[in-house]
């Protein structure tokens, strides 16, 4: 709760700083505030919190873990934002504010204990993002991204809300504990309307995390939005979506696994194939990352399909690995784009000679995406597959491994471009902030890959 209060107040403080033209103070204060919020979140660890505000919010270890990872990723995104928003517009403070508002919505999404809170949190996050996607007002792609995201998002919210309403109609409560009790009390004879609500909620949530066949907005929105916002969307927002998904299913719908598992299974397989095979044909690095984010959503859905005690841990590790690698990829992309003006694979040619550190960081990130051992991505995939194997989804894991191999192809495209193709380019000047973020991401990726027991035994 204190985390949520700090982030909300921080957003308003930043808004006022913009009013008083204190531009230099925006970034330090935002980062300091987030560090404070992070500290407050971690202090709640193992405090055995009970649901507060008449069962609206439950800041348990699950919430602490996922809010921490979201806050840390947001701090990394903020560090990359130095001098980024200034290029777009004069109203820099508002952008920070909107990101912070989105983050406060995300905190609600990972700690809700009532479906009304889920809805409010999801809306706070989405509304902020619709605006952030369109902040390049003169840019056609950005406008398209914002409009597309808004229409699709509003549509998916409708599904989610309809689902919540039907579940309320059957169980007579929004409270997760009451709904869970409703399911447990009725081994047979649950209202059919409850099942319809459940399916509609799956549709709504799959829209938000960008799983096939509800992924059509993802590539255009990710490509059109400003790169920094794309980095935020594909990391923090996606993790929050999965946390909300997992929280709902593990608390409420776990006993109904026989009913929803086949549906999610089909969605997972479809997501993996659509994401990976389409990514193969991309020439634009940013669009490739968008499709790869779809395929990673597929891997994370695995842990929900094989819902069990290990699921939380699996998703947490996967999300952590995916977040740091994505941040690295987008950071390098921002630097390359600032220099060459486009974001195709050819722009990365010869990067290893001109900027060895950038090339190395991006290589490690790509290896982590592909799931090569000694990187965090491998550990993430290992735990996700392990969770699936524990429930004897052998052939599902086989399909996923095939997809992982397809993934290696397109992730190596950029590595090949950087190391084996020549291009007479001058060195790209990397600001200190970027080096810091890249260094931190690199260290996290390698440390988690080599010594994963830091976070594997959290839950």
């Amino acid at each position, binding site marked *: 709760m204190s985390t949520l209060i700090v982030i909300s107040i921080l957003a*308003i403080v930043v808004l006022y700083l913009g009013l008083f033209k204190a531009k230099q103070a925006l970034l330090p204060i935002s980062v300091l505030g987030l560090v404070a919020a992070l500290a407050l979140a971690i202090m709640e660890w193992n405090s055995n919190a009970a649901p507060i505000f008449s069962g609206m919010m439950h800041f348990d270890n699950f919430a602490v873990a996922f809010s921490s990872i979201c806050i840390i990723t947001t701090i990394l995104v903020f560090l990359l934002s130095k001098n980024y928003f200034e290029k777009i517009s004069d109203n820099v403070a508002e952008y920070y504010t909107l990101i912070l508002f*989105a983050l406060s919505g995300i905190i609600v999404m990972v700690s809700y204990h009532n479906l009304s809170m889920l809805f409010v949190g999801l809306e*706070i996050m989405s509304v902020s993002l619709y605006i952030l996607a369109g902040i*390049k007002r003169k840019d056609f792609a950005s406008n398209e991204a914002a409009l597309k995201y808004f229409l699709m998002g509003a549509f998916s919210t409708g599904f989610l809300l309809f689902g919540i309403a039907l579940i309320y109609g059957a169980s007579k409560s929004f409270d997760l504990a009451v709904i869970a009790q409703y399911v447990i009390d009725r081994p047979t*004879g649950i209202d059919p309307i409850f099942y319809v609500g459940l399916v509609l909620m799956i549709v709504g949530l799959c829209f938000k995390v960008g799983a096939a066949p509800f992924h059509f907005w993802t590539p255009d929105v990710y490509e059109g939005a400003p790169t920094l916002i794309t980095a935020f969307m594909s990391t923090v927002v996606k993790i929050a979506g999965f946390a909300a998904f997992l929280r709902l299913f593990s608390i409420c719908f776990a006993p109904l696994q026989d009913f929803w598992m086949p549906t999610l299974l089909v969605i997972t397989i479809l997501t993996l194939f659509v994401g990976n095979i389409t990514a193969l044909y991309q020439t634009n690095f940013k669009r490739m990352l968008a499709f790869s984010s779809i395929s990673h959503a597929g891997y994370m859905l695995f842990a929900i399909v094989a819902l069990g005690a290990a699921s939380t841990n699996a998703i947490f590790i996967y999300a952590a690995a995916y977040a740091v690698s994505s941040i690295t990829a987008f950071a390098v992309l921002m630097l390359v784009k600032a220099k060459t003006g486009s974001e195709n694979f050819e722009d990365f040619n010869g990067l290893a000679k001109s900027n060895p550190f950038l090339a190395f960081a991006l290589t490690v990130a790509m290896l982590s995406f592909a799931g090569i051992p000694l990187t965090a991505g491998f550990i993430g995939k290992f735990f996700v597959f392990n969770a699936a194997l524990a429930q004897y989804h052998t052939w599902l894991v086989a399909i996923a491994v095939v997809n992982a191999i397809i993934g290696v192809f397109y992730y190596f495209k950029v590595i090949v471009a950087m190391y084996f193709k020549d291009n007479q380019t001058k060195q790209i000047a990397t600001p200190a902030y970027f080096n810091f973020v890249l260094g931190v991401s690199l260290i996290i990726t390698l440390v988690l890959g080599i010594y994963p027991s830091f976070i594997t035994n959290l839950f």
Partner: protein
Amino acid sequence: MSLFYVVAFLSIIFALLVIFTKNPVHSVLYLIATFFTFTIHYIILNAQFLAVVNFIVYMGAIMVLFLFVLMLMNLNTDTEPMKSTLLKVVGAIAGGCLLVTLVGSMKTLSSASTTAMDNTGIGLVENLGKVLFSDFLLPFELSSILLLAAMVGAVLLAKKDNKTA
């Protein structure tokens, strides 16, 4: 009960007219009529607050907005883009599937339970206010962040910017 059937019949008729009229302005006017019948439904169900909100917000504000946009865009049958037959078929199948699922679940539902409400006055403004400011205080307060974010965004996107991006 007979009042319910009359109003329900009218809602369905008006809802169908919304889809089947060619002129978009007529469509919107029928939509207003549909919403008005919904308001009557809410009053029959003893849900004062919903009735008032539906009347003011949907029938009033949103519909005016709709009409305004339609008139600004000057839509008529000529400018309306033609949708391909394939798209129509796909839409019909998808919508039909959802309808079948919903109807199927409603059918089994009716035989299962006819629950009486514990408190018939639950939709009155007074009771709603009590619930909103006690049990649902946190989501209620959090909505302020949502509104503030939307407000900041609206100003941000609409305000004139000196810099060209």
